[in-house]
């Protein structure tokens, strides 16, 4: 075998372009495979992964401190696989500052540190509470906190008069508390209950969690347990957004794998076929068939292994970044690619490349030296003859008709290249559709840009108003006066007043936020998917998620409760928004439960060209208590999905274009004598370029025609699956995202992928010096 290595190395050096193409394609394909497998592995259980990373509690239990002691709880918890607690727990009453987004009360737990055997908290901002007077808030890292939310260093005043400084933000995927303080501080706050966090050996089903709960509460006073939260219920609630990822990651992952396999097979088998003559020469020199095969396998394996290693590194970096961003809402910190993915890829891709090379190499192995040497240069029977004859009789320019006929000369290679282009176009089609659907949904659901100016009116609380710089602004005018002021300010075209009120759905433990509107609420950008807007008292509009979570339908009646009052309301419509705990209603309904409340938010639309700063100044000149607040913003989720889609699509498109590039390099090398002859009889370099590019552009057009329906079908499957995961309805406008103009552009995408891959080798071939080619017999 001593002769094999130097010959292989020389072959790699001599075939620089092919070596480069193999290396780059394998690198990109490997990157994509690592990302795809990494995402697939992660998407199969992002919640479980994050839960596992934080050692999340399978059961969060609250006990009555007057009924059970800490030692009893510790004793009873022995059957659990892991336990954290007992921790003192209480509900801090903050009162209402009238600031939307600020909580009225916080379930707070006293914990000495964020780590431990269960519920390891991710302190992502600030630090853990170290002394009395400090508090750490539980907040999802992707949440901005909303308007009025406390920031790091801010002080929270309790209704009891005590003050706590926010020193950090942590996230508990177990949702074990709203906030944490030191045990010493908790003692001062007088805990009302005791929290225990359990992990069980078996917790895959409700029955197993119930059995675990029974075990850790056996022997305790019967009425000591005052509340529990199973992680299975939490997973069902939290599954919405991450589950949205799964279908699209699955589709892109498999597309990536399929394209990579196709391209690698095409590149390698093409390289082997192009190397027949080389193989023949080696045989003539005395290499055994096995040595020849080894040379050939080594020749393609060297760049493949290098590409594979680089691709694995890149894939890990990319997938880790994507996964961390995608699943950061679990607060799980960095989420990496499982090690098995790297092992599978580092072994699997070179094996795949070798297998792709093996079949054509075996074919070459069986050829005699003379046959192998003459392969590619001896006359061969033509292919696609009827098509060629028909094309030669058409009115098309001859360079174009010759180009259209070229794909028929190598049907197997054409089929592989076409398949890669088809999958490339399918990816682009799906990506464009997904992008449009998600953007449309996000804009409609979040009402992004639906309102020009949003102004908040601070509401005075009972007792003396707070003083100092931190004091929230209080509206100077009455509700009616403020609305009249806004309507009369030059430029205003529509004004909607609203108030958020915490409410409860009767018969459940579900806390809701009810938003009551007055004025021009039809201008707020909500889309009514079913039913209608409210037009009288006792009517509400809700979301698809609300209906699903409560098993309700449009037309059903519900009872909403707040501050000891309740109101029966009919669900008259279903609007497009993504919250499952928010209901929309009107001022007439508010009057039934809280007739004396004023609006605290005004959403204003203005005439085009109105100076918004001047508008706000004009309003504030008459009521300085009206503060402009940021309007609705698109969430990060859609941005992450879109970024992932764009990245994967670019990679798939590049690999598909490289597949075409490789095919053109192989074709033009094989047909260099034909090209030389055509130039000798007067074909210009431009005509030669047109001929070669046309041959691939035709594939691109066919790829477009075949790939677009596949992409549309994938879109029709993926979007509803994503919507189902997110518990939202898919209105028709989210699916009808492929107008005729876009379809034409997508066909153009196929042609562009193919033409981009073909252009440079075509130009190189077109400028080949003819004399060298024709006399190189």
């Amino acid at each position, binding site marked *: 075998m001593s002769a094999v290595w130097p010959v292989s190395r020389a072959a790699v050096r001599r075939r620089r372009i092919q070596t480069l193409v193999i290396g780059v394609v394998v690198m990109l394909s490997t990157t994509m495979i690592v990302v795809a497998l990494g995402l697939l592995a992660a998407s199969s259980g992002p919640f479980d992964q994050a839960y596992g990373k934080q050692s999340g509690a399978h059961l969060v239990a609250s006990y009555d401190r007057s009924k059970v002691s800490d030692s009893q709880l510790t004793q009873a918890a022995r059957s659990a696989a892991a336990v954290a607690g007992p921790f003192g727990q209480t509900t801090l009453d903050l009162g209402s500052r009238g600031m939307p987004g600020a909580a009225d009360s916080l379930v707070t737990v006293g914990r000495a540190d964020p780590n431990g055997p269960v519920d390891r908290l991710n302190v992502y901002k600030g630090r853990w509470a170290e002394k009395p007077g400090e508090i750490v808030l539980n907040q999802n890292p992707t949440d901005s906190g909303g308007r009025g939310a406390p920031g790091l260093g801010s002080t929270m005043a309790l209704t009891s008069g005590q003050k706590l400084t926010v020193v950090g933000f942590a996230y508990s995927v177990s949702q074990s508390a709203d906030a944490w303080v030191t045990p010493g501080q908790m003692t001062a706050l007088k805990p009302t209950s005791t929290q225990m966090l359990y992990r069980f050996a078996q917790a895959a089903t409700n029955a197993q969690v119930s059995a675990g709960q029974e075990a850790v509460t056996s022997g305790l006073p019967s009425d000591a347990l005052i509340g529990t939260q199973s992680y299975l219920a939490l997973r069902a609630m939290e599954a919405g957004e991450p589950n949205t990822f799964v279908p699209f990651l699955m589709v892109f992952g498999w597309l990536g794998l399929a394209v990579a396999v196709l391209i690698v097979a095409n590149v390698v088998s093409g390289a082997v076929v192009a190397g027949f003559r080389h193989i023949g020469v080696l045989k003539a020199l005395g290499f055994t068939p096995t040595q020849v095969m080894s040379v050939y396998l080594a020749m393609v394996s060297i760049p493949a292994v290098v590409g594979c290693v680089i691709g694995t590194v890149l894939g890990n970096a990319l997938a880790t970044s994507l996964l961390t961003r995608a699943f950061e809402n679990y607060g799980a910190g960095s989420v990496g690619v499982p090690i098995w993915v790297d092992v599978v890829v580092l072994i699997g891709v070179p094996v795949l490349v070798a297998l792709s090379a093996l079949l054509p190499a075996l074919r070459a192995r069986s050829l005699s030296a003379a046959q192998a040497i003459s392969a590619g240069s001896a*006359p*061969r*029977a*033509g*292919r*696609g*003859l009827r098509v*060629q*004859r028909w094309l*030669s*009789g*058409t*009115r098309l*320019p*001859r*360079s174009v008709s*010759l180009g259209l*006929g070229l794909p*028929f*000369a190598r049907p197997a290679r054409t089929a592989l290249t076409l398949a890669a282009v088809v999958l490339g176009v399918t990816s682009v089609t799906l990506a464009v559709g997904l992008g449009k659907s998600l953007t449309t949904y996000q804009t409609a659901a979040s009402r992004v840009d639906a309102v020009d100016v949003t102004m908040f009116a601070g509401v005075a609380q009972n007792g003396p108003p707070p003083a100092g710089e931190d004091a929230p602004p209080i509206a100077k005018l009455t509700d009616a006066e403020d609305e009249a002021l806004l309507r009369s300010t030059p430029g205003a075209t529509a004004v909607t007043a609203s108030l958020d009120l915490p409410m409860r759905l009767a018969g459940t433990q579900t806390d809701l936020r009810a938003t009551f509107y007055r004025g021009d609420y039809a201008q707020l950008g909500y889309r009514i998917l079913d039913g209608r807007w409210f037009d009288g008292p006792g009517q509400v509009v809700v979301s698809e998620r609300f209906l699903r979570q409560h098993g309700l339908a449009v037309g059903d009646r519900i009872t909403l409760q707040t501050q000891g009052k309740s109101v029966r309301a009919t669900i008259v419509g279903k609007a497009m928004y993504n919250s499952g705990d928010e209901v929309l209603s009107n001022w007439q309904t508010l009057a039934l439960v809280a007739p004396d409340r004023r609006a605290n938010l005004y959403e204003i639309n203005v005439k085009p060209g109105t100076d918004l700063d001047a508008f706000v100044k004009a309003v504030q000149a008459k009521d300085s208590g009206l503060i402009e607040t940021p309007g609705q913003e698109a969430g990060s989720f859609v941005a992450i999905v879109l970024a992932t889609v764009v990245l994967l699509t670019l990679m798939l498109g590049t690999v598909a274009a490289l597949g075409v590039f490789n095919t053109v390099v192989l074709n033009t090398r094989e047909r260099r*004598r*034909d090209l*030389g*002859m*055509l*130039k*000798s*009889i*007067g*074909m*210009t*370099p*431009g*005509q030669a370029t047109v001929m070669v590019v046309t041959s691939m552009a035709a594939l691109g057009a066919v790829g477009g025609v075949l790939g677009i329906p596949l992409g549309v079908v994938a879109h029709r499957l993926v979007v509803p699956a994503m919507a189902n995961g997110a518990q939202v309805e898919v209105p028709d406008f989210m699916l009808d995202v492929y107008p005729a103009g876009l379809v034409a552009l997508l066909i153009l995408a196929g042609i562009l992928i193919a033409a981009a891959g073909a252009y440079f080798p075509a130009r190189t071939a077109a*400028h080949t*010096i*003819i*004399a060298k080619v*024709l*006399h190189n*017999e």
Partner: protein
Amino acid sequence: MTESNGGMVVRLSAVRKEYGEAVALDGVSLEIQAGEAVAVMGPSGSGKSTLLSMVAGLDRPTSGSVVVHGDDLGTLDEKGLALFRRRRIGMIFQFFNLLDDLSALDNVALAAQLTGTSASHARKRALELFEELGIAGRRNTYPAQLSGGERQRVAVARALMNRPAVLLADEPTGALDTRAGEQVMDLLLDLNQIGQTLLLVTHDQQLATRCASRVIEFVDGHIAGERSLEPTA
């Protein structure tokens, strides 16, 4: 068959061609009159094929000038050279260089179609040539199914398609058996007798003697000798 003006068709003046350090042509000057049949002979590597490439505009000289039918090839860009070959040059090769995927007729018609001639007109003209060359019955056959002699006749037909000023032949009988070679020689002789200017590169003394009126001997890139012959009828 040629657009001869009765004067000079090819003029090479002090043409030198270098490939790296190797000198393929070393100050070659040569003139060919319209209707003449010139054979270039010499050992391998003497510069015969390079001379043909210069005349056909397939390659450019390092120095010196090449003028064919009034076109100074040194002034033409790549596109200009392609158009020049289209209008002025017909080439036949030792290994025919036919496109395997096209029928014999379409291979020939191709030369005219590249100039923008319609498919029907090109095929009509090709068929006329097939009849003149005695291969009309093989017009719908593909190259792989033709004999060597037939392939070379198709190649000759293709070379004549655009009525070239000069027909260049590079070892036209080199890949043929004796009988097929004889037929091709006869064909070239017939073409010359009706006025087609020929420039042959060959090792074949018999071909040169039968077809050419003048033989130029090449050695190491320069003209070592020249003699006139009476073509054999």
